[in-house]
């Protein structure tokens, strides 16, 4: 065996190990969701779809409601976040105002506080505002929480758009607003889109705020909903939990696979000169 061949074998072996390590929990989740018995006891693996049928049809589990809540809350948060971060990034890259750098650093610093450190006060704030267990009560904290990341991604994206494009638009007769609508926004669209996706995924997967700010199915999101699934006699319905997890993982995975080019581009933009 020559050296090249050994290298190749080692390369693929490493790939397979890494892949197994990452995918094992997912495979376990899927196989459990399709198994008659969660503990795999008994003589053989009995394939069944009953857990899926259960979560999709059982009213008392409210799974469909959780999905709706999650999608609406995540989508609205992502839209607000991207719009705010987009205008912020435009201002940061196009105008040189005083304290620009310090403001940026302050925003980044705020995003570094662990969620747990603010959740207590946040609960009181949201409760006093009468927003516990409402969509707004989650959309507000989500927007604030995801905003710094979105802003940083979009700043790196906007700073890659040459200033000469703005200038050309002004020369061609645009007002500042027209320059943004006709030139800057269309050019920034891929970056805005990847930011939107990342913001959506972050909000969709969020757990702690959702756990604290909701009390029942009216606003509860999928991750919290699943974790609070309970069986008829207080036992943990592993099959249903895994089936629900599989269902909710699917859209995130599909979105990421479909748009991975944009997402990677959005994250690494600015690191290398395009």
């Amino acid at each position: 065996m020559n050296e090249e061949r050994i290298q190749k074998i080692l390369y693929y072996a490493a790939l397979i190990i890494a892949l197994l390590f990452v995918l094992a929990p997912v495979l376990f989740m899927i196989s459990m969701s399709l198994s008659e018995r969660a503990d795999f006891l008994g003589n053989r693996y009995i394939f069944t779809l009953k857990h899926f049928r259960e979560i999709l049809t059982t009213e008392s589990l409210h799974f469909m409601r959780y999905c709706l809540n999650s999608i609406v809350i995540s989508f609205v948060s992502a839209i607000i976040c991207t719009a705010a971060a987009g205008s912020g990034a435009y201002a940061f890259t196009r105008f040189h105002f005083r304290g620009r750098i310090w403001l940026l650093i302050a925003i980044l610093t705020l995003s570094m506080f662990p969620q747990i450190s603010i959740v207590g006060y946040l609960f009181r704030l949201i409760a006093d505002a009468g927003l516990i267990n409402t969509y707004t009560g989650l959309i507000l904290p989500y927007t604030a929480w995801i905003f710094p990341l979105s802003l940083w991604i979009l700043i790196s994206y906007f700073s890659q758009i040459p200033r000469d494009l703005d200038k050309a638009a002004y020369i061609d007769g645009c007002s500042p607003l027209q320059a943004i609508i006709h030139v800057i926004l269309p050019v920034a669209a891929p970056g805005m889109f990847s930011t939107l996706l990342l913001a959506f995924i972050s909000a969709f997967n969020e757990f702690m705020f959702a756990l604290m700010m909701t009390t029942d199915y009216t606003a509860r999101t999928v991750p919290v909903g699943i974790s609070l699934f309970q069986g008829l006699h207080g036992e943990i319905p592993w099959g249903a939990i895994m089936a629900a997890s599989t269902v909710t993982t699917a859209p995130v995975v599909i979105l990421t696979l479909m748009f991975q080019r944009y997402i990677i581009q959005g994250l690494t933009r600015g690191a290398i000169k395009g």
Partner: protein
Amino acid sequence: MNRLVIKNLSKKFKTLHREVTALKKINLTVESGEFFVLLGPSGCGKSTLLNIIAGLEHASQGEIIFGDTLLSSVEKGKFVPPGTRNVAMVFQNYALYPHMSVSENIEFPLKIRKIEKTERKRMVDEAARMLSIDNMLDAKPGELSGGQRQRVAIARAVVRKPDIFLLDEPLSNLDAQLRASTRNSLKSLQKRLGVTTIYVTHDQVEAMTLGDRVALLKNGTVEQVGSPNELYQNPKNTFVGGFIGSPPMNIIETTIYEKDGKVTFRLNETEYVLPEKLLQKISKGEKYKLGIRPEHICIFKEPVKDSFPSKVSGIERLGRETVVFAGCNLSTITLFSPEDTVLPDEKVYLRFDMSRLYVFRE
């Protein structure tokens, strides 16, 4: 006539630590239909001046007047935004809108000005034909080569018949051959359209070949304005002499002194009498430098009349001629040798054409 007048224009930038003066009291007049070149090394303020004329930047002081219209005046608080100045600009990196096709790019300024659709199409087709890009109207800028993008950018600028045509180093991103041919077509296009043009470049060859008149800038001030020939023949100072011409004019350190009632100077221990026509340019007690262009120096292997000895320090063969570097006083001067028999470290004799000698006050 629609001449462009720039009066007492200054521009100061504030950075974090200090205030930088980019332009100091610039006064210029560009005649109607003239091809005017702003030439200077990088950082001399030529692009800033162009941006201020375009209205993309505000001046700190001074006025810009076009024809009878006051375009901007800091003192009178007047500022016409770039979109209504009817100026067109071509950028160094072309600044084409990447999400629009070639025809949409050219059409954009017309669309913003709400020109009617069939008229728009006619104007786009005309501009595209003029720059022979009518076969790529549906392509996106990303699919085009550098030269093609350049032509699209020029088409976008000429399509709406601007009053002033501004070009910011439009040829710098092209390779050498394309640059020469684009230079030619740009010149003839400008003559055909007859539009007042201001062209920014750091390349003196572009300035010499394109400009009806050239303004040479340095550190935010205008050093000299004139036709390319004037700048070449009568440079006002060592900077102008050293910037115009390729290779540039040789500037030689020397002491001018009186000996036996004659004004003399030395070139490598050989004494020369200063030509009579230069006498009026010097006065006692001042320090001077001499200037002579490489093409006005002859090189010999044996001593001839009026020559002085020197040593070759290096050569560059260009094919048609050879550039020779030789020592003179404390500096190295460049000159041309028609034959390529000169060798480094060889002893040679140089003769200046004294009628082409310049003196500059230090």
